[in-house]
C-alpha cells in the first residue's frame, strides 16, 4: 500500500512536469495547426539559459524563470515572424520538415557551445522531499506541478478574459474571419508562438532543476512527450495538456510499479491508443478545431 501511494503521489507531480512540457506545444498545435518538432529544442535552450544564470550568477532556477521566459518569448516571436510564418499556409509536411530542421540547427549549435555532456542545475531543495506518512513528495517536481497549474489557469484566463486571448482564439478558429475583424493574424501567430516558446523554456528550466539534460537525447524525448500528451488531452482546450500530463504521469508511475519499469513506454502508448479509440478528440479536446476554416 505504501508503494502504491508513493507511486500515485510521484505520478501526480511527475504529471505536472509533463504537462508543463506539453502546454506550449498544445497551444501552437491548437491555434496555428503547426506540430512544432523544435519544441524540445526550445525547452533545452531554456534549460541552458537557466543553467548559465545559475552557474555564473548563482540565480535560483525558479527566480530565473522570468528571464528565461522573456528571452524565449522574444526568440519565439522572431522565429515565427521570420521563419514559421513562411510556411504557415503550406501543407503540414512542410511545417514538420521546417520545425524539424530548425530543431537540428539549434541542437547542433548547442552541442558546439556546450558539448553533449549532461547538465543539471544543482539546488539544495529540488531533490529533497517532504513526508506525508510514508509518502515522499519531492519539492522540485511539486514546484513544477504548481507551476503547470498556475500557467494553465493563467493561459485559460488570458484566452477567455483578454482581447489578446480572444484574438488568438478567433484566429485559431477562422483566420479569414479574424482578419476581417481587424485582427493582425501574423502578429497574433507570432505572439502565440512566442508564448509557447516561453513556456517551453520554463519547462526546460524545471527539467534541468529536477533532472538532467543534454542537447542529444533530451529534446527528442520532450517533443515526443509533448506530442503524446497533446493528443491525449486534446486540442482547443487550455486544460488539455494538464489533464493529459497528469493522466500520463499517473499511468506510467503506477503501471511501472505493477508491471516493472520496462513497461513504462508500452503503458503510455496503451493509454494513448485506448483514449483515442474512446475519445478521438482527446480527453477534453474540442471537436470544432477539426472543422475550422483557414483562409
Amino acid at each position: 500500500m505504501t508503494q502504491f501511494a508513493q507511486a500515485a503521489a510521484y505520478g501526480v507531480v511527475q504529471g505536472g512536469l509533463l504537462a508543463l512540457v506539453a502546454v506550449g506545444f498544445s497551444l501552437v498545435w491548437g491555434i496555428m495547426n503547426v506540430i512544432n518538432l523544435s519544441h524540445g529544442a526550445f525547452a533545452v535552450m531554456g534549460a541552458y539559459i537557466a543553467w548559465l544564470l545559475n552557474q555564473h550568477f548563482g540565480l535560483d532556477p525558479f527566480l530565473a524563470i522570468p528571464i528565461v521566459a522573456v528571452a524565449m518569448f522574444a526568440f519565439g516571436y522572431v522565429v515565427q515572424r521570420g521563419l514559421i510564418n513562411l510556411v504557415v499556409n503550406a501543407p503540414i509536411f512542410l511545417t514538420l520538415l521546417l520545425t524539424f530542421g530548425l530543431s537540428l540547427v539549434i541542437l547542433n549549435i548547442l552541442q558546439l557551445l556546450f558539448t553533449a555532456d549532461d547538465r543539471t542545475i544543482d539546488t539544495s531543495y529540488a531533490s529533497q522531499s517532504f513526508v506525508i506518512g510514508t509518502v515522499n513528495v519531492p519539492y522540485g517536481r511539486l514546484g513544477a506541478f504548481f507551476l503547470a497549474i498556475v500557467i494553465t489557469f493563467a493561459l485559460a484566463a488570458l484566452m477567455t478574459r483578454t482581447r489578446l486571448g480572444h484574438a488568438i482564439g478567433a484566429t485559431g478558429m477562422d483566420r479569414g474571419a479574424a482578419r476581417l475583424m481587424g485582427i493582425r493574424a501574423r502578429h497574433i501567430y507570432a505572439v502565440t508562438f512566442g508564448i509557447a516558446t516561453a513556456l517551453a523554456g520554463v519547462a526546460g528550466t524545471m527539467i534541468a532543476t529536477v533532472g538532467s539534460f543534454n542537447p542529444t537525447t533530451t529534446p527528442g524525448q520532450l517533443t515526443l512527450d509533448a506530442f503524446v500528451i497533446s493528443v491525449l488531452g486534446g486540442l482547443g482546450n487550455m486544460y488539455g495538456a494538464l489533464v493529459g500530463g497528469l493522466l500520463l504521469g499517473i499511468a506510467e508511475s503506477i503501471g511501472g510499479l505493477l508491471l516493472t519499469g520496462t513497461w513504462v513506454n508500452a503503458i503510455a502508448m496503451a493509454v494513448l491508443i485506448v483514449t483515442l479509440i474512446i475519445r478521438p478528440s482527446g480527453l477534453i479536446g474540442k471537436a470544432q478545431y477539426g472543422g475550422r476554416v483557414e483562409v
Partner: protein
Amino acid sequence: MIRRPGALIAVGIVLALGAAACGTSSNTSTSGSGITFAAPVSQTGAFGQAEGLYTLQGYKFCVQTLNAKGGIQYGGSSHQVTLVTQDDQSVSATSAQIVDQYNDKSYKLILSPYGSGATTAVAPVAERNGQVLVDSNGADTAIFTHGYKNTFAVLSPSSTYVTTIIDTLAGLNPAPKTVAIIAANDGFSQHSADTGVKEAQAKGMTVVPSATAYTSSTKVAANVTDVSSALIAIKGTNPDVIIISAHLNEAVAAIKQASELGVKPKYGFAATVAPPTPAFISALGTKSEGVIGSTQWVPEISASDSIFGSAKQFLTNFTNTFGWSATQYPYQAADAAAACEALALAIQKAGSADPAAVRTALAGLSADTFYGHIQFDSTGMNTTKPMYAIQIQKSAFVTIYPSNLASTPAIWPAIAA
C-alpha cells in the same frame, strides 16, 4: 477532432528520420603498405555523448601513438595505421551493417563499437566475413558463448562488475549487511547483477527486496532517465547500499530520484560503468560524491609497455591530448587503446596483416601492457586481468580497491547518517 490523421504518421516518420539524420561518418583511405583499423563507434545517440566518445578517443590516441612510434613493424618495414570510423548512432543493428560494409571495402581488422549490445550484433558479422574483431567495451559474457573464433575481448567480462563492487564493500568498515540491486534490461547489466547477487550472498549479505528483484521489480528499461518504479520497489526495505547495474543515464537518474523519493541507503551508492566517467560527475554535481564504481583500469597499476609506457604515462599523455582532467579520466578510452594495441601486437607477432594470421596470433597472444595482462582464453575472453573500484571524492576518481592500489582511503559510510 484531430485533423489530418496522416499527420500522426508523418510525425512518427520525421522523428524516426531524426535519429538517422544525426549520423556522421568519416572515411579515410589507406595507401602503400598501410594498415586499416575500422571501428563503428557511437558518436550520436544514447552513448554518443560519453561512452562512445571515450571509446573513439581511445582508438584515435592509440593510432596516433602507434604512428608516432613508427607504426607497426614487421617484415623489415614499418606500416602506418589508418583509423576508419563511422557513427553507429548507438544502434546495434547499425553497427552490424557498418561492419558488413567494412568487409565490402576489404577492411578486415575491426575494433569494436561501444557496449555489449552493439558488440553482440557485430561479432557474428565479423565471424561470417572472416574479419577479426577486437572487443574493447563489450563485456557481456554472452558474446563468448557462441563459439566465435574471431572475437577477442581485452576487458574483464561482465561477471566481474558487480562482484568487484561487492568485494570492495565487503572490505569496508562497516561492511553492508543488506544491498539492493537495480539493473537495466540489457544483457550486460542483467548478467552483472546476476553474478553480483551470488557474490553478495556468498559474502553473507542479504539482497533486498529479494534476490531475484533485479529481474522484475527493480529492473528498468535501458537508457531511461526515470527509474522511479525500481526505487519505489526498494522503498521501505532500507538497504545499506544501493547498487546500480546499468549505464550512465540510469545511474544518474537513480541517484537523483532516490533523494526525491526518500530512498536513502544507510551507507551509500555504488554503480558499475557510470561513476568512472567524467559525464557522471558533470550530470550529478555534488550528488556524485562518495559513489563507488567498478572500473576496468586505474592508473595506479604497475604495468607498462613499449608503446604507451606506464599506466601513469598513458593517463598523462591521453588526458593532455584530449583535454581531460587527470583526476577525471574515462577508463573506456584505456579499454579502447588496449584493444587497438592488442591488434597491433598480434599483427607484429603474425608478421602480416592477413586476418587469418592475425586471428591466430591473437589467440596465442600473451602481453603485458599499460592496461594489464592481455591473454585470451579459448572463448576469446581476457580473464587474466582483474577489475578495480574507485570512489568519487571531491570530484576526482580515487582508487579504493584493491587495497594495495588504494591512493586514498574510502570515505565510508559515504552518506551522513
